[in-house]
């Protein structure tokens, strides 16, 4: 009786002590998840999520105070990747996947005000004052900041269409779908 109690007590003290030591020795500074999430974000700091930048958004995600579907440019792909990363089971079926979009400038509406140029986080719009602006497709992330800034509504977001270089075979329709 006494023996058993002694053994259990000893075990408890030893293991508890071990845990205490481990907690101090192996303590992780900061939140490594936040840094890893930040790596996954688009990194344009466009602010569409309502956070002041991708870094702040990552911190909010890591803290669990923001939904994985917060990032419009990242779309459904990023949302599901984030859900995987955070181990969240999230129903994304309701999330409209707008696909990837890029900005397009209607030349007859553009007045060459350069407001969009200044807002673009990736310098994807080229042009100069009083000249029609154009979009460098490869650099555009579809963050929509330029569309908001345009005073004449000359910028719209268009879905990025497949080209011969980017097209790939679609996934076969699930069997017996008919």
């Amino acid at each position, binding site marked *: 009786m006494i023996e058993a109690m002694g053994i259990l007590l000893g075990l408890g003290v030893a293991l508890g002590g071990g845990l205490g030591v481990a907690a101090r020795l192996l303590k992780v500074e900061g939140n490594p998840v936040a840094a890893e999430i930040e790596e996954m974000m688009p990194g344009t700091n466009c602010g569409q999520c309502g956070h002041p930048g991708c870094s702040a958004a990552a911190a909010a995600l890591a803290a669990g105070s923001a939904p994985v579907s917060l990032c419009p440019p990242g779309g459904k792909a990023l949302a599901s990747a984030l859900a995987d990363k955070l181990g969240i089971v999230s129903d994304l079926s309701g999330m409209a996947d707008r696909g990837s979009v890029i900005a397009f400038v209607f030349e007859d509406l553009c007045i060459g005000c350069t407001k969009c140029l200044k807002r673009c986080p990736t310098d994807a719009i080229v042009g100069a004052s009083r000249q029609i602006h154009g979009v460098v497709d490869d650099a555009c992330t579809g963050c929509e900041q330029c569309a908001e800034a345009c005073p004449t509504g000359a910028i719209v977001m268009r879905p990025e269409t497949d080209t011969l270089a980017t097209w790939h*075979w679609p996934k076969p*329709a699930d069997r017996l779908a008919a």
Partner: protein
Amino acid sequence: MTARGPIGGPHTHSGASVGRTMGLVAVALVPATAYGLYAFGWPALFLFSGTVVAALLWEALSLKLAGKPVRLFLFDGSALLTGWIVAMTLPPWAPWWIGVLGAFVAIVLGKHAFGGLGQNVFNPAMIARIFLLISFPVEMTQFLEPRPLLSPGAPGLAESLAIFVFGHAGFDAISSASLLGTVKTALGQGTALPDILSNSHGLLPLAIGAVPGSLGETSAVLLVLGGLFLLATRVITWHAPVAMIATMAALSGGFHLADPARFLDPATQLLSGTFLFAAFFIVTDYVTAPATGTGKLIFGAGVAFLTFVIRTFAAYPEGIGFAVLLMNATVPLIDHVVRPRIYGRTRSGEPIRYEER
């Protein structure tokens, strides 16, 4: 079809189909089944038909409940085959509910509970057999001497129907145990093997099937004939049957040589019970066997080893059902570990290296 976008290749096909494969297996089963039906008469025919029909009905019901296209799957032949194989493993004069229950366990629990065609881990027919054997040991071990159709001792149509509906307790049948059952009991009573076998059957009746046994498992010759047909039509590969037969022959041969009074000889081991039936029709089941040749060798050898152990050292006279189910459980592991060697890579998956040129 909701075929949007281009249709991928290849744009020609071998003509193989699930239905064709199942059909060939059915053809291979015909000789042994026909012999069984002949040898055990009308009651066997009733039991066989009842089981097959029940299997199709359970299949239709399961498909309906699962929301799958009933017509497409019901006629792919897989349910027919499952019912058929279940029927072949039953005592030939078992009552109707044994067949219906067996079909239920095989189709609903053994197949559809796992997700339907292609998804089951365990062989449905073997699940049914083990379920029935454990639940109804009396009904499942009442074998009888063959009474060929229209022979003097065989029951007539009306009597047969009565046997099918109520069981054959009322009919004056001499039920007898199978050879393996007899041996197990006698050995348990301390009789030496040569004494038991001397008043039992010879090898020839075992081979042609003139012995008590399950409906479709008695005629070794006809089962092998069906198996050879499947090998010739490339429905099955040689790996699992050969591994199974070789392992059993080697194991039982070794033990028999060591102590002929205690251990059965290899020929009797191979020819009796479900062994050859399992070698050609059970361990070759696509869904529940490994995918590679090496995997199939391991699988077949494992089944034979476990069968021998159970037959020889455990309480049951026949061990194939348990052996198959146990080995079924190892198939995912076998498939994970045993993979074919990828072209241009070593077995461990590294690219082949040549001498620096």
